């Protein structure tokens, strides 16, 4: 006959379990999403002078929730613009630029500007990375005749920048990941 009583065993085990749960859980801190980019501002500055046209994408609360706010004012026909891209993380009033990160890793990043229809405007790159290949934070765009269409601005990461004939139509074949892909409705007037 065993010397342990069932009730004695039960008490020990239950007490042990209770002791484990007695310690309180500390409140966690929210995660600082430093890498998140939720704002892209594409500034078209006419080379001949005049006020710049600013395309912008802002998803204030991140993916999901409220929809992103996209703005794309009209561009002038037959005009040459210097186009600069500014990526940032916007949280309330705080704006944290992310361009430095892109330039620092320029050899694995490249922007692509896809106009639809292709005759809407002509695009050329104005900057280069450490291997003399374009990045796309600084560009030149020449608009054609008055028309409407779309502009897709894409940032690819870890692509093969040495891919033969790399351009805005075949960039997917060069591999890599899409970090940014935003579509703007373009009106050339």
């Amino acid at each position, binding site marked *: *006959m*065993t010397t*342990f009583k*069932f009730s004695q*065993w*039960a008490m020990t*085990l239950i007490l042990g*379990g209770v002791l*484990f*749960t007695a310690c309180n*859980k500390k*409140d*966690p*801190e*929210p*995660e*600082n*999403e*430093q*890498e998140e*980019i*939720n*704002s*892209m501002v594409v500034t078209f500055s006419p080379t001949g002078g005049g006020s710049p046209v600013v395309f912008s*994408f802002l*998803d204030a*609360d*991140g*993916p*999901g*929730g409220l*929809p*992103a706010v*996209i703005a794309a004012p009209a561009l002038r026909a037959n005009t040459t613009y210097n186009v600069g891209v500014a990526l940032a993380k916007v949280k309330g009033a705080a704006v944290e630029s*992310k361009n430095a*990160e892109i330039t*620092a*890793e320029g050899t*694995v990043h490249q922007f692509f500007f896809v106009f639809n229809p292709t005759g809407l405007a002509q695009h050329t790159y104005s900057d280069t990375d450490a291997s003399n290949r374009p990045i796309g934070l600084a560009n030149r765009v020449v608009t054609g005749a008055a028309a409407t269409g779309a502009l897709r601005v894409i940032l690819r*990461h*870890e*692509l*093969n*920048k040495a891919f033969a004939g790399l351009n805005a139509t075949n960039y*997917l*074949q*060069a*591999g*890599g*990941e*899409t*970090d*940014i*892909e*935003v*579509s703007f409705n373009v009106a050339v007037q």
Partner: protein
Amino acid sequence: MLHLLIFATLFQLLLVQRFAALLILSLTVNQVLAQSPGCHCSIEGKVTSANGSLGQASIRLITPKRQTITNGEGFFSFDRLCPGEYEVLIRYQGYTDQQFRCKLDSGLHLAIRLEETTLLLETVTVQAQREAAGAVHLATSLDKTELDKARGGNLAESLRDITGVNLLQTGPTIAKPIIHGLHSNRVLILNNGIRQEGQQWGSEHAPEIDPFIATKLSVIKGAAAVRYGSDALGGVIIVTPPDLPRAPGLTGELHLVGQSNGRQGTASGSLAGYARGIGWRVQATGKRGGNLHTPQYFLANTGLREVNFSGAVGYHREKFGGEIFYGRFSTEIGILASAHIGNLTDLNFALQSPRPVYPVRFNDEFTYAIQSPRQKIAHHLLKANGHLQMGQMGKLTFQYGLQANSRREFDQRRSSAATDRAALDLQLITHTLDVVLEHRPIGPLQGSVGLSGLFQDNHNVPGTGIRPLVPDYRAGSGGIFVIEKWIKNTFELEVGARYDYRHLTAWRFDRNDQLTRPDFNFHNVSGTVGAYFEWSDQLNFRSNLASAWRAPAPNELFSEGLHHGVAALEFGRADLRPEQAYKWINTIQYTNPKIRFEATLYYNKIDNYIYLNPQLPPELTIRGAFPVFNYDQTNARFWGLDGSLRVNLGPAVYYTAKGAMVRARDVSHQAYLPWIPTDRIENGLTWRVPNRLGWQDAYLSVNSLSVARQRRYEGQSDYAAPPSGYTIYHLDAGLAWPLGKQKLAVHFSIRNLGNLAYRDYLNRFRYFTDETGRNFILRLNYFF
């Protein structure tokens, strides 16, 4: 490094030449060949007990001296016997020996029923986990012999030979078992008796269990909530390690597996002994593999590494005993480089790409290197269990389990400075306690009553820089159950009931990073009723109707945003109710000397079935457009049929066939459910090669698997149409050499014999690549 250490230690022990007393579960098959003409008769049969079929029972023929053991289902056979009279002796530890004489003319079928020597006292027959849930629940098992033929894969791959079980794969290195169409947290896995808790809600989170620790893998295909608690809607997978030795002497095993596809090498060894009343065992496994390949290209970043070890000590007496077990499983798995897609544009490109296009740091070639994206998981299990005779009351067993699971998932990061920072870093600690009292049988009535408790803490390790997928939470649950069985010789009836309570508190940040602490309470009552009929020793039938439940998982309640691993936005609902399932499962089994047949028909009604409901249009984020899914509830119905057949075509050749079909429907929306297994049939021909040159147990078998195309699916729930059906062939061969008391077995397999390029509907990466190509596998098993 660990591989070398294992080799060195075991090699030293071999040299010491200690011949050990054999474990009751070790294999010794001595067959003396009777080469007389006209001797083509056979004796076959099945050994059962009050608790179901008995595997590993010893059957001995006295003249001529032949011996074998029963397989996981209790079957045994002798062939190439001469007509005449035979003395048959059957023994199994803990049961009374049976010996009788029988006359053999051409074929003889024996149905043997053993009785336990004494019900709860006397012989020390405590087994680590006596999972035999009675004859009412059919536990389809793979015993040691069958497992040793197929060593080297992960847990789900080890189970694929069981009908009704499929694999849900995420690329070639991650697989989860599906039972009757249900998987993840609708299937309960018992690892050495403890419910496996490790973020199992994720379809790309494979069970963190080393199949090498098991001497038996069993699947119970019925809803088994009453005995095991929540989550057992599809069934239960039971991983049973070997018993600790009870007799002095040192025994052990060494397994080596080499695979050509992926150049994967696995080494596993175990050592067990007994001294001064204490039995012990230590075991370790190491695995390393590199990039796998399809018939046309390499799958970049599909390497894997695994280091596992475990140890157990136990002390057993008639009236009481206990054991302590510790196991550690750790792995690093590469995720296919082209599967980490960005947005819908990228997905469409991948879908129409004939070959995967990899990011620039990956090459279409072989390497062992693993880069991000990858998973790094460690799982620790500490278990203490014991048993106690409570005199007139019965036998009390209790077990305490402590699990610590660490899951770190590394993704593509925007800046390379963060590549070594995990994107998901979860730590889950789970305590479980089970106390069961098996009361002393009252006439034909046997039963048990039990209490179980669980406490769990989930913690996101800060510093990922990414909003966590599931929040920090604490959960506690408790349950109480009663199961009674009425056992007669050819009939058994089982009735049971259980009450469960679960409490969940989460620490969750909303969109504005404000901390909220939602609280949830769930209650449930489950029941089970079943019966087992034995019409003759050739035909039996069992039927079970049981209810099961599952509380909503943290990802279903709290998801909010981009789930990078699946490139979709997923949104949870805090008002989800627990799922409620009623499964009715029926199995018929027929055996005669020529044919063995088994069929299972089931129907599973799942109310409040939680699923991902696609929502249009896709959401525009700065990364592009992503599909949107909302967690929702509906009423689902599953039903299906699976069966297996074995026909002896002669003294040395037999034919096997296995088939399964699953049908599932969302009855509220009159729609099909995604990721349901398609109809499949397997055919095989096995030749038992005669013993020659000292070898034995030689076999050669060719198998084919035909899988149908999935035609029951909803277009908007899937990114692409299901792939076409396929037929694939495999070859297996092996033999064993007895070396005195030791044994060496060699198994050779060729999987995907025809190097077929195909895609499987149940592989979540079928959008991106084909399945793996031909694979040559060599396995060496050494027992001493």
